[in-house]
Structures are given as C-alpha cells and as structure tokens.
C-alpha cells in the first residue's frame, strides 16, 4: 500500500483516533495489528517471509540468551575453582556455540533476502557466461516477488541479533513485541533502519495524548507529502524522459538528468522518511533521523555521514568494523606491514573492509551491475579523497582558502555533482549506457538546444517548471533554516494566524500542485524498491 494512497491516509486517520482512545497498555498491540494489516495489504504471501524472520530471530535470540545465562551462572558458581585461563577458555567455548547460532540466523535470514533478490540476477549473469560459451542451456527466470521492505527489516532484525550476540542488550522475551519491532509499519517501506535499544522504550511505552507530538508529527507528514507529490513525482517525469531515451537525450540533457535526479531522489526519499517519522511522532514514537541536509556536504565522506544515516551506521557497525578488526584482517595487515611498510600495511584492512562494504551497499540497493558499479565508484571516490587529504590540506594552507565562503561553496557544489554523476547509475538501463552518456557530456555540445525548446521535450510544461522552481527554493530555504534548529519549533514561535496560514498553504500546494491522480503516475517511493 502506497504511503500516498487514499486508503493509507484513511487507515492512518482511523489509527490516530483509535490509538489515543484505547487503554494505553494496548497501544503497542494495536500498532502490531495495524503493521501486519499494512503489510498484508501489500501482498498476503509476503507475510510468510516477515513472520519467518521474526520467528527465527526470536528463537535464536532466546537460544543466545540461554547460552549467555548458562555462561554467567556457570562462571558465578565456579568463581573460586576456575583459573583465569580456564575461565577464558570456557568463555571462548561458549562464544563459539553462540556464534554458530548467530551464523545460522544470519544465513537463514540473509538467505531469504539473497534468494528472493539475487537469484534472477545470478542466473542472468550465468546465462551471459553460457552465451559466451555458445551453449544452448539456459537457467530460467524465476517469478520471485520481493516482499515489501525486506531489505530494510532484514537489516534491522539482523542488527538486533548481532547486538544480542554481542550482549549489548538482552533479548526481547515477548515475541509479539519483537514482531512489532520488525514490522513497525512507518519504517517498513524505506526505513529508517532502527536499532532495538533505540526503539524499544519509545515503541512499547504508554503514550499519552500530547498536542505538540500530534501537531509536529502532522506538520512533518505534510512536509513529506509536499516533497514527494509536488517535487519528486513531478520531476521524475523529466528524469524518466531523459534516462529512458538515451539516444535522444544526450550531452546537456544528461547533466540536466543528473541535476533533476538529485532533487527527485532527495525529495522522494527524505519525503518518505518525513512521513514515516511524522507518523511515528503522532503516535508518540521517536524514530532516528536519516538525513542531515546531505547536499550541504563538502566532501563525499561527509555526504555519506549525512545521507541515509541509518544504513551507513548499520554497515559501519555490523560490517566495516567487524571486518577491519577481525583476526584474519589484523594478521593480513601485519604481513603487509612487514612486506610493504607501515603506511600500506595499515591501509589494507580499511581498504578491504571499504570495498566489501561498498560492494554490499551497492547490491543492497538492487540486483544489477549498475548498483554494484555505483557502490564501487563511491568507494573509489572516498578512498581517493582520503589519500588526497594531505594534498588538500597543503593547498588550503598555501592559498588560505580552506575556510572562505566561496571555497566552501565550491566544495559543496563539487560534492553535489560528483555524487550526482555516480547516482545517475541508478537510472540508465545498464552500466554501458551510463558511461556512454557520461561521454556525451563532453563530446556533445548542445547547451543551446536546451533553451531552444529542449526543456519542453521532457514531459513537463512551463507551469510545471515554475512550480518546481518555487518548490526547490522552498526546500533550500527550509534546509537553511534547519541549521538554526527545528523549523517546526521556529514556526511554533510565530503568531497563530501565520502558523495556520503556513499549514494551509502547504496543504493547498499539495492538493493542487501534487502530481497525483489521473494523468500522473504517482508511484512507490524509489527507496522502497531497494
């Protein structure tokens, strides 16, 4: 069910009213029922997968807890008898047992994700190899349907089981509470990817009616709808026209496509997150922020700290660090230090972990080479930037430009375009086409064409461009205001009539200028397909 569908809005209204009318101790149960209802409306068969993940994670977290309790009890009981070495070896033995259960859980759940998401991609690649070998045998394309939000809830749940394994917190004893953590509907479509210790209190506690939560939550939902319906879905028309007709739209159109897609994806993804966080806030639940004005970043590393924050931190905590400080990696680093020197040796674990993380990030976004290349290009840019940092520092010191406004603006622009250039890989049908289009930016000089009716070929009218221009300026102003703190708090200090007028104008803008209904193909959020 689309966040932007009438049915969803109707469901929300009913939920908001019921939520504050029922006894507070049942609020989380209502959320669980609604989350499963929401999920079942996206496809009743998908329920099997989310339930399998929930049950398997519950059983294994319980098993981990049993082993951890047994270890604690044993060590307590035999405190006097065991030597330090014996205690250490006992702990290692128990950790090994726990690891087996953890691996089983990870294999099972990532296995579901892998089979559903990557089987056809793998078969497709094998078939390409078979083609090269001139064999007639082909692997079939399977009719696998990717359940809604599987990439998000699998990562969230696996983060939980790893934390339980690491004894960061104890397992959740109530399977229904765990089920709500896994399936909480606002974050199911496209995140944010929550951590159990962040969410458990706010999710299960009793929530009294607090007017500020309702007001701020609704404002955020409204703002999310504005971004999605007025900006993203309208601009997507032009993006699709450009990327689906690569033979027609080249050169300056590719640049335009990069710019438009940057805005589209930002408005779409942050809009969806605003709606998710807003819904949670109305319910009194706090979700993690997923963005921090990413297009104001001055470097790619900073950009990735501010874009899709919860995915980035997930990879950092559950993949990058475990790989880079693993025993085998430390051994490798040691060997490399001995052979190539300290400078190279210390970089090896970081490089390998980075490549693995970015490869996985790429393929997490989609089972296609575009996404793999997208991930690896990001990795390349980040590693090269890191290597060039001393050079940049020298340059800044020599020319005293590091802190000037114009230089920072240059850095912001450079990061925006660099990321945009890589991001457009999402859109073209394959890697080859994307690189061909990169080439046309240099080889095809057709700026004049753009101002000679070119804009009007992209499926938008002049009036659409006007709406987009005003909306994007508004997004920019709001982002600038956010630097001083919550815009909703700033607005709350204004006179009542100004506040009401602001809400109503945004509502009207969505109602009138929203790209929904007949004539528009208002679709799923882009990230919900990842």
């Amino acid at each position: 069910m689309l966040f932007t569908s009438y049915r969803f809005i109707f469901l929300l209204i009913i939920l908001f009213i019921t939520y504050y009318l029922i006894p507070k101790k049942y609020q989380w149960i209502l959320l669980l029922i609604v989350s499963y209802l929401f999920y079942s409306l996206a496809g009743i068969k998908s329920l099997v997968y989310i339930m399998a993940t929930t049950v398997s994670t519950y059983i294994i977290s319980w098993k981990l807890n049993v082993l951890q309790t047994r270890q604690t009890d044993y060590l307590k009981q035999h405190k006097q008898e065991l030597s330090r070495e014996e205690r250490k070896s006992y702990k290692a033995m128990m950790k090994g047992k726990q690891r087996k259960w953890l691996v089983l859980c990870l294999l099972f759940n990532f296995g579901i994700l892998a089979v559903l998401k990557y089987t056809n991609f793998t078969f497709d690649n094998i078939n390409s190899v078979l083609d090269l070998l001139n064999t007639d045998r082909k692997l079939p394309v399977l009719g696998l349907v990717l359940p809604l939000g599987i990439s998000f809830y699998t990562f969230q749940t696996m983060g939980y089981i790893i934390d339980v394994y690491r004894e960061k917190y104890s397992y959740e004893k109530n399977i229904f509470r765990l089920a709500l953590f896994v399936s909480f509907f606002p974050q199911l479509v496209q995140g944010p990817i929550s951590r159990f210790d962040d969410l458990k209190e706010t999710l299960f506690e009793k929530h009294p009616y607090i007017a500020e939560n309702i007001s701020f939550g609704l404002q955020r939902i409204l703002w999310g709808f504005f971004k999605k319906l007025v900006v993203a879905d309208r601009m997507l028309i032009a993006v699709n026209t450009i990327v689906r007709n690569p033979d027609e739209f080249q050169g300056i159109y590719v640049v335009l496509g990069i710019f438009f897609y940057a805005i589209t994806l930002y408005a779409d993804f942050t809009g969806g997150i605003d709606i998710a966080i807003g819904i949670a806030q109305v319910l009194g639940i706090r979700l993690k922020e997923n963005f921090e004005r990413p297009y104001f970043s001055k470097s790619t590393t900073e950009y990735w700290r501010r874009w899709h924050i919860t995915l980035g931190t997930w990879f950092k905590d559950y993949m990058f660090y475990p790989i880079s400080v693993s025993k085998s990696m430390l051994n490798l680093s040691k060997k490399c230090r001995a052979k190539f020197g300290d400078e190279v040796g210390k970089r090896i674990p970081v490089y390998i972990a980075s490549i693995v993380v970015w490869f996985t990030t790429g393929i997490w976004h989609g089972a296609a080479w575009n996404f793999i290349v997208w991930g690896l290009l990001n990795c390349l840019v980040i590693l090269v930037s890191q290597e060039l940092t001393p050079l940049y520092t020298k340059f800044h010191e020599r020319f005293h430009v590091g802190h000037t406004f114009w230089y920072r603006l240059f850095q912001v622009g450079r990061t925006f375009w660099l990321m945009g250039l890589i991001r457009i890989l999402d859109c073209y049908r394959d890697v080859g086409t994307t690189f061909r289009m990169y080439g046309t930016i240099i080889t095809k000089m057709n700026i004049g064409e753009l101002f000679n009716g070119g804009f009007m070929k992209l499926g938008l009218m002049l009036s659409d461009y006007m709406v987009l221009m005003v909306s994007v300026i508004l997004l920019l102003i709001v982002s600038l205001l956010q630097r001083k703190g919550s815009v909703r708090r700033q607005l709350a200090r204004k006179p009542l009539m100004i506040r009401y007028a602001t809400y109503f104008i945004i509502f009207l803008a969505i109602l009138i200028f929203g790209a929904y209904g007949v004539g528009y193909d208002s679709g799923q959020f882009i990230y919900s397909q990842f």
Partner: protein
Amino acid sequence: MIRKILINISVITLAIIILALLQELFMPKYMSSIHEGNLVEEYYDEVKEHDVIFIGDCEVFSNVSPITLWENYGITSYIRGSAQQLIWQSYYLLEETLNYEKPKAVVFNVLSMKYNEPQKEAYNRLTLDGMKLSKSKISAVKASMMEDEQLITYLFPILRYHSRWNELSGEDFKYLFDKDKLSHNGYLMRIDVKPVNVIPKGRKLADYSFGDNSYDYLDKMTKLCKENDIELILIKSPSVYPYWYEEWDEQMVNYAKENNLTYINFLDEAEEIGIDYSKDTYDGGLHLNLSGAEKFTDYFGSILSNEFHLPDHREDARLKEIWDKKITFYYSMEEHQRSELEKYGYLKSYGAQAQEKEDER
C-alpha cells in the same frame, strides 16, 4: 481558551469555504464544449413534475425533444441521459429521480445493454460528476469505477481535477457560481446537418449475448418500475451507428415478453417516422439533429399518448406557464444556432468542433 476555540472554528470554517470554492473552480464547466457534461446536474433546477422520464445514453438526449412532446401532445417529460451512459448509471439515475417524483412512464433506450463493464473514466465523469451526493450516486460510482479509479475522487472532485490548475480559463471563473442552461429538459439541441455517407455492416461478434451485469441492472430497473407502479418502455432509438444486431434485438424482444414490457425498435420504423438520414443527422448517423429529433418525438409521442394514455396538460395554466418559458428558450436557441451556422458555417458555441475531433479519434 474560548478565544482559541473560536479562532480554531473560524479557521476551519474559512478553510472549508476556500476548499469548496477551489473545488468549484477546478470542476470542468462544459460551457463552450462537451455540453453533455452539464446534462445530469441541470435536472435539479427543474420543477419535478413529469409524466415521462427518458433514461439512457446519447440516443435519448440527442434524439428526443421534450418540447415537441409538450407542444404536440401536452406530455411533460425529462431526459436523464448523458454521453455513453451505462445501464447501471441509468438505473441509479432513475432510482435518484424517483426520490423526487413519480412519473407515469419511464423510457429506457437499450443501446447500453451492450456494455457489461465500465468503459472509460472520462464518460463516467460526464454522468456522475453532475449527480448530487446521495446513496444512489455512491452506488452508481461504485458500479462504474474503472480499476484505477477511487470513490473519494467522486466525493471530493478536486482530487480528480486539481491538475487543471494550469489550464483554468475565464470560463472557469465566469461560471463559478452559476451556469447557463444548455439543454431543453435534458435534450441537447443541434440543428446542423452531416448526412450519412455509409451504411455500416455489423462486424461479426464472437458472442452476441448481453452480459450478466447488464441483465442484472435491467432486472433491477424493471423491478423498481413495477414497485413504483411505473410503465417501463424499452426502446431502441433510430440511428445508423452504432450497429444494432438482430441477435441483440431478439434478446430484447424476449426480455420484454418475459417481463411483460413494451419494447419498440424504432430502427425498423425510420421510414414511417419520416427520418431522412441525408438531412436529419448532424454527425453522419450517430445522432439525430433537431429536425430528426422532432420527427422521432412526434412519432413516439403519438404512441405514448394513444397507447399509454399519457395525459395532455396543455390546458393546465400552471404547467403552460412553465412550458411557455421553455418553448421560448427552445426557439431562441434554434434561432441562435441558425445564425451561427450562417455566420461561421458550423455551430461555434455548441461543441461542433469538439464533436468533429472526437469523431476523428
């Protein structure tokens, strides 16, 4: 506290007023073209006292002239028809009409029996947007919606028409609060002529049976009329297009026999009526023009008067006063159309060009 409540109430009221105004503004006005879009809503301004209610598609609103029926037989009538009005829309419009008045006879043109499923959102809108909110309207919408349509967009049409923001014209503002009357008791007048060039042959169909859905609604219509002691008359109005198959006709004959109804196929009686397809149609045989409609109405009027004994009200002073005004409007429009034809060679203000484009499609 009270001040805050009052402010909130005022703000909500103001917001509702603005939204209602915007909704009216964005609704298509159908004043300069596609006049059919206004037919359904014009009924609500009527004095609802009619002997006959005609229901059906363009074959009633183009082919039957209630003014002729009044002038020649003193029968009061109204046409509740619109473009490609499907049978379930006809049924619910009839159901709604019976909440306002109890006619002596209902005439249903059976062409729409051939459509067993919703066809096109645009045609749904022409019929349903004009209906006042009622249980009948909701049922009609539910029965008519295409797969990608939503009930809420019929209840709050701004959700459908919001994208007209960049095509609003002077017409939208001019007719924001009040629209000119365009029909004559549901009859859409056209005096221009486009003769029939080709007599079509029916394409062979795999199955000639009318669908279950169509029969269900015809059954409902029959039941509704019987319950209200109304004579239901089934007709097939004279036209050259769309082709009316023998097999379809047979099914209607049988249905009428089984349900003790009258069914008249006027296609067979075109000659007797006096219809000359080189003069009496404005679009090559799909619809009759004024001349054809008056001939057909006069012929059908004598049946209604003689066989169904519908009363002559021409001596009723109160009704006469009402109908005199209608007659004046009728002839003034005819005159206006004649002057437009002379001046431009086509009916500029009556959607003639729009019709041409639609035909080309």
